[in-house]
């Protein structure tokens, strides 16, 4: 019996840990890769895990843990974001499987592909209180914010989810369209395999036909995706195989879309509620349920500020949730929208205050505001717009400067330059005034 103070690095199952280029990689072969890579990583400290290939990400993740260290998961790869995070972790190395790292730091290339011979060796244990990840969000205070999670807390949430979705019984392949560095991607496409009986797919299918082929090759597989990708699958006009399950997170899924996806994939669609701050905490069957049901052991409480906080065995302290939540009872809730400052573009979150701060920090920008997309808008993905006063800077220069700190999805389209912003006495610009400015502009174009 393993000591609960040292949870295992890896669940001992007969199922492969991963499919790499069509080959199943056993858990013993994976462990051989982890031990070999571990010898090249400095002991302790925190290191960036930037691997794109999900197998290599998982090898790097486990190797960093094995060396007593913490995985740094950045919110994006913008140059300034990475360098601001790097400043907080002197001595950090970057574990990479692609050569194009935008900042200078010591690099450890990860080339493992599960072809090392498996040796018969015991599964290592990791101290429960070792920090496994620093998951960064882009923050609302001017700098990236770290949300750190202990190794035992990742164990707990994984067991809660495996049980909720019945994955502990039949496992299956995880076809994931989300990056492993994202909290949902980490939990649902890496940890379900590492700490459960599932098998992860090294590739990250992106286009609808990639997803279809992965689901055919591993049928019936679990599709771990987002409303953005589900929508693309629904519109692609392809013939789809049956999936074992469909999981969706990162943005709310409409009931009609969940129903269509259930027909398309011949299975139940389950939506996961979570956030970088707290991890996954609840789920619902969106086609039939509007209330969310928390995972076993999770409790919700209302704070003095009316904000709702979550606490479970994986949270040492209550964690305030970034959404407007209405409690039905201690186990069920309704999500009524995001807090005013939060934006969501194709499943990625950002703070409007923070985006405006970054825009106005660009040299030569005298004034500027981002305009969130119209929530009623239909068709295609809604984008941010921005109106800027910057007589000496071109649109392209402003966009290039913004791209240093900002995920490409949040770059404004269009970016409009004006002589002055009609700010009110309180310094605000009414939304209607901004929309009128946008309208005028598109008529001139």
């Amino acid at each position, binding site marked *: 019996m393993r000591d609960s103070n040292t949870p295992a690095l890896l669940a001992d199952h007969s199922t492969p840990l991963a499919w790499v280029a069509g080959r199943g990689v056993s858990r013993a072969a994976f462990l051989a890769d982890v031990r070999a890579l571990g010898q090249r990583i400095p002991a302790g400290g925190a290191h960036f895990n930037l691997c794109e290939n999900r197998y290599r990400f998982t090898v790097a993740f486990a190797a960093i843990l094995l060396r007593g260290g913490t995985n740094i998961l950045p919110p994006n790869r913008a140059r300034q974001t990475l360098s601001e995070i790097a400043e907080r972790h002197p001595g950090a190395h970057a574990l990479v499987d692609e050569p194009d790292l935008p900042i200078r730091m010591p690099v450890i290339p990860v080339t493992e592909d599960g072809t090392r011979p498996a040796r018969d060796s015991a599964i290592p244990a990791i101290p429960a209180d070792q920090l496994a990840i620093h998951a960064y969000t882009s923050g609302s205070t001017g700098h990236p914010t770290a949300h750190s999670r202990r190794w035992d807390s990742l164990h707990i949430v994984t067991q809660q989810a495996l049980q909720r979705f019945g994955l502990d019984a039949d496992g299956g392949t995880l076809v994931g369209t989300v990056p492993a560095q994202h909290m949902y991607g980490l939990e649902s496409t890496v940890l379900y395999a590492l700490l459960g009986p599932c098998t992860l797919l090294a*590739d*990250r*299918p*992106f*286009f*609808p*036909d*990639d997803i279809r*082929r992965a689901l055919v090759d591993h049928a019936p597989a679990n599709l771990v995706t987002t409303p*953005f*990708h589900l929508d*693309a699958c629904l*519109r*692609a*006009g*392809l013939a789809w195989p049956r999936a074992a399950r469909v999981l969706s997170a990162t943005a709310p899924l409409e009931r009609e879309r969940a129903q269509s996806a259930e027909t398309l994939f011949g299975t139940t669609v389950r939506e996961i509620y979570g956030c970088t701050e707290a991890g996954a905490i609840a789920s619902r069957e969106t086609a039939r349920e509007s209330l969310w049901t928390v995972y076993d052991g999770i409790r919700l409480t209302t704070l003095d500020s009316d904000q709702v906080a979550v606490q479970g065995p994986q949270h040492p302290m209550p964690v305030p949730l970034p959404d407007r939540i209405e409690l039905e009872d201690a186990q069920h809730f309704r999500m009524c929208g995001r807090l005013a400052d939060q934006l969501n*573009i*194709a499943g990625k979150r950002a703070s409007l205050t923070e985006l405006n701060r970054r825009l106005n920090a660009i040299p030569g920008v005298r004034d500027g505001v981002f305009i969130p997309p119209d929530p009623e808008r239909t068709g*295609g*993905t809604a984008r941010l717009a921005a109106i800027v006063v910057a007589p000496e800077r071109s649109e392209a220069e402003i*966009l290039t400067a913004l791209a240093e700190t900002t995920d*490409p*999805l949040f*770059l404004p*389209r*269009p970016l409009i330059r004006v002589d002055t912003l009609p700010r009110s006495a309180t310094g605000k610009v009414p939304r209607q005034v901004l929309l009128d400015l946008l309208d005028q502009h*598109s008529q001139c*174009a």
Partner: protein
Amino acid sequence: MEQEVARLIVDSLNLEEVSPEDIEPEAPLFREGLGLDSIDALELALAISRAYGVQIRSDDENNRQIFASLRALTAHIEAHRSTS
């Protein structure tokens, strides 16, 4: 054909700022060129499959080249479109 694909790009991505004639055939479509991103790539792939019956895939050998420019994208569609 190149102009037809340029029109498809502008229409499917709602690029209000750009007219099809403005797209330089050899200029990059992504990042420093038209400034397209991954959402646009997916939207464009859906439009191309509807219009030409060509499925774009990540593991196509020259995926980066396919989206490298208007000219490269047009060439890829012409080489793979269903013969009709």
